[in-house]
């Protein structure tokens, strides 16, 4: 399953986007997000971006006030996931122009859409910004 979930959380610990690639109940999700956010937000920038949690690991990176947290299997390549996060941010940046937290809040479905283009069933299937954005742009026109 490669990627298990993608979370975007702001500095205050509020979830701004949550995409899971396996089914979790509401309670499980609440507990998971609480634990992870607490763990990751407590870290500073001199510390590395990888945190082991339960039986998987979290690769995270902070952009502006948003933390991007990706939960992956243990044998997943950490650096590749960092690249993936960066690609996601760049893609959103290209679409929204200077993307910020509010963009994601008010256009959540677009953010989801981009993620869906990039990740399928936990596997990264698309890495070209143009390809990711093509359908969204089509839809915007329509």
């Amino acid at each position, binding site marked *: 399953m490669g990627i298990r979930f993608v979370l975007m959380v702001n500095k205050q610990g509020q979830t701004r986007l*949550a995409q899971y690639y396996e089914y979790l109940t509401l309670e499980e999700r609440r507990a998971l997000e609480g*634990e992870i956010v607490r763990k990751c937000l407590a870290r500073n920038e*001199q510390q590395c971006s990888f945190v082991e949690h*339960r039986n998987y690991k979290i690769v995270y990176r902070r952009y502006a006030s948003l933390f991007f947290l990706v939960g992956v299997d243990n044998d997943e390549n950490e650096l590749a996931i960092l690249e993936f996060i960066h690609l996601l941010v760049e893609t959103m940046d290209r679409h929204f122009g200077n993307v910020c937290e509010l963009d994601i809040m008010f256009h959540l479905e677009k953010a989801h859409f981009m993620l869906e283009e990039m990740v399928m069933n936990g596997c990264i299937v698309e890495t070209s910004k143009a390809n990711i954005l093509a359908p969204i742009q089509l839809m915007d026109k329509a």
Partner: protein
Amino acid sequence: MAGGTSSSIMETFFQRNLEDLIKGLRLQLIGESAFISKALDEIRREVKSTDPHTKSNAIHKLSYLASLHFHDMSWAAFHVVEVMSSSRFAHKRIGYQAASLSFHDDTPVLLLITNQLRKDLTSTNEFEVSLALECLSRISTTDLARDLTPEIFTLLSTTKLFVRRKAIGVALRVFAKYPDAVRVCFKRLVENLESPDQQILSAVVGVFCELASNDPGSYLPLAPEFYRILIDSKNNWVLIKVLKIFAKLAPLEPRLAKRVVEPICEHMRRTGAKSLMFECVRTVVSSFSEYESAVKLAVVKIRELLVDDDPNLKYLGLRGLSIVTLKHSWAVLENKEVVIKSLSDADPNIKLESLRLVMAMVSESNVVEISRVLVNYSLKSDPEFCNEILGSILSTCSRNVYEIIVDFDWYVSLLGEMSRIPHCQKGDEIENQLIDIGMRVNDVRPELVQVARDLLIDPALLGNPFLHRILSAAAWVSGEYVEFSRNPFELMEALLQPRTSLLPPSIRAVYIHSAFKVLVFCLHSFILQKGHFTSSCPDNLVPGISALALKREMPESSDLITCEAPPTHGEQDEGFNPRVSNQSCEDLSVEHDGDRTISHGQTSMHDSSEKNSFTYESIVNLINVVELALDPLTGSHDVEVLERARNVLCFIELIKAELPECLVQKETSVDSEDVKAFKIIELMSDAFSEELGPVSVSAQERVPLPEGLILKENLDDLETICGEVQVPPSNLFSFGSPYGEEKGVFFSDLHSKEESEPSTEATSLLTEHRKRHGLYYLPSEKNEILANDYPPANDSKWKNNLNNDTEDLVKLTAQSLVSNKKPNHAKPRPVVVKLDDGDVGSISAKRPEAKDDLLSGAVREVLLGSDVIPTSQSNESNKSFGKRKGKEKLNMEPSTELKENLGDSEKPDLEKPRSRRSKHRTHGKDRRHKSPENINEEREENGLRGKQKSSHRHARHKARQRADALLTVVSQTPVIPDFLL
């Protein structure tokens, strides 16, 4: 009717959409939950509307609340299905998103959507297809997978790449849910491995990487395809996935490993992308550890990571190193300086990794030094890491029944020392080890008792609840092995000191019981000594003198006790003073000054011959102390404490009546055996002298099962009864308690005021913020950052402030980590009792239960099954691999195919001076010759095949025969493809 329409228009008109909802939420500083529940009420109403727009809008809002605010939306499942079936794409999309968010295997309405999904999967609008695929990849059940397999099959080779990519992703889920789908779809999936399109390739390789990670064996036949991708692909995502596949395949097939190790090293050398480089390193160190040169190269790369300032790379370097260590310990020794410096890194994760590595370096010869250094280091570190250090020392040293410990005296005193470290929370583990060592290692018991005594006698330790378990062990040890004690009286004082009231009752009970053992021991020794004394000088001595001598010793020993015991014992001394008439004793001792010096000598010899110095008075004194301390406990509320205290007191009661008597009977002391009290003491002492040994882990299994006892009875019914009585998880962060119950306090607590500013002001604030926290933003000039490499680490300005401590540490460990240092065994390793059967928990490395046996079975059947029946195979493979140019059956002549690929792959490399390879190209395409030593090895391995290899170009049919012959041989054993031959 008209009213109904107008109301729906009104609804539509005044309905709040998601944006309104979000804006509203942002305005709620407090009372967010009230706002949400109001919104939910609205949604409940709106969702029943007949107007599709109102309905989808409601679902849209609901899924937002479910996704980010954890509100249940399962009740709306049917409405979701309705919205999914809307003809408008915008509505449909909302419906699908809600479905993939909230549906799961047990959702009842899943049965209703099969046809909808089928319709959308076959739609001409590729975006609708994409929606359905996306949804299917998240919610697919066995039924859905079975029913929709034909549609997936069609989509797997559609010309619309946008859709095909997603269909490939879905295949993984479909296979997992419905393994029979493999028979239909697998070949199409394999065909996609040849796709020139990078995205398709990326998707399909990702799928195979997942499939192969569960059951690598089944995918060996596809190795040539993966090999080609490894050589040809320029896409780092794809390469990383292919490397992961090879990491799984290589251990299964040595010939394959030999083949791919060189290309992997090539990637490692040439790539500029750290992610790919690290993946190569990880692949080599985990699956190619027998290839010395490759491992060496990997270690060089690891070193580059280790010395990098970026904490991410450093962490990964340490991770890589810890994989290498399993087989090549030299790698750590080479980098030990960096590793040890990392112990004081700013990042706890890095510290932890380096700690693991340091522990991996520990051996019999350096365990003393390393532990010393680490314990010193733990004193300076934060509580959490301190306990990590202690924990890892404890677990490393106790591994395999204390395998690496030679000097147990040292280890036991180390345990004592660790207990005193202020942050120590490893009480349980230290407790276990103290007792375990006591039971297993005879020779260490004197030292163990000494350590226990030091712990017990310190009143300060009783105040630390983390130490209680250790004290319990110390108390047990001192009671059980009291015969090794230098001064049992002192032990008794320690066990009964007033501050023991701070202990929890269960541990206090251990204290009392140990006191009992000490008491019995003292009494017994006294009797023995007396018997010995009277028998050795039966009639020479005047009875009076011996009595005097006994009395005379008394002040010394009581002095001894009072001065060594904590001052709190003054009152207890008071207790016995009147009874033994101290006054007269002192008079006597003044009279017999000469004797006094002698008895002084005796007390100074206490250390060695304490056992011989039991006197009547000291015993009486002892009994009094015990009585005094335990009397109040007869009113204890804890049954255990109460009972133990009563045991001791009753025992004293029993013997006390006769004790003075038997001491008065100096003349008839030979008959002392007859006295009842002596017999009792004798008996008790016997009872306690039985030695306790370690218990085998499998002891329980050897107990025969009593008839009529059903062990595996289904107790599910209890669930309903005890459902509410759930034990709350003690620690939310522990890995052991998955999804511990948690209130959403965190989110509401942190609920921000900050982001309540209107968005117009936000832009100016944003630029401000951006200035201050520039490092968290994308670079403002929009040049395409090299997508090749992962983004630079957070900040490299951070200085590596290595304090002096670390340097000391490095210096200290520098010597101790030299592995060839001879262990200087001052004394031979004592015998450690080991039980032969499963002493250490039999954690047999169980192969993960192949839960997808069906899946792998199906895959094997598709890939290999046809080999067994060659007639059908030729047809099938011709059909399925028809796309390949100039290739024939996979199993028959894979080597030629491989060589063609190799030929292609070399083209980009030609500018690099790799004369050997190009030379061989002219000589012939047999690439195997490029490393002569390889072929020699291989010849040795399979001489016959090697011979045929050299000539197979000329004899195709011969090779075919051989392949057939081989197939018959290995038909039921794992079928290994012969593509390498």
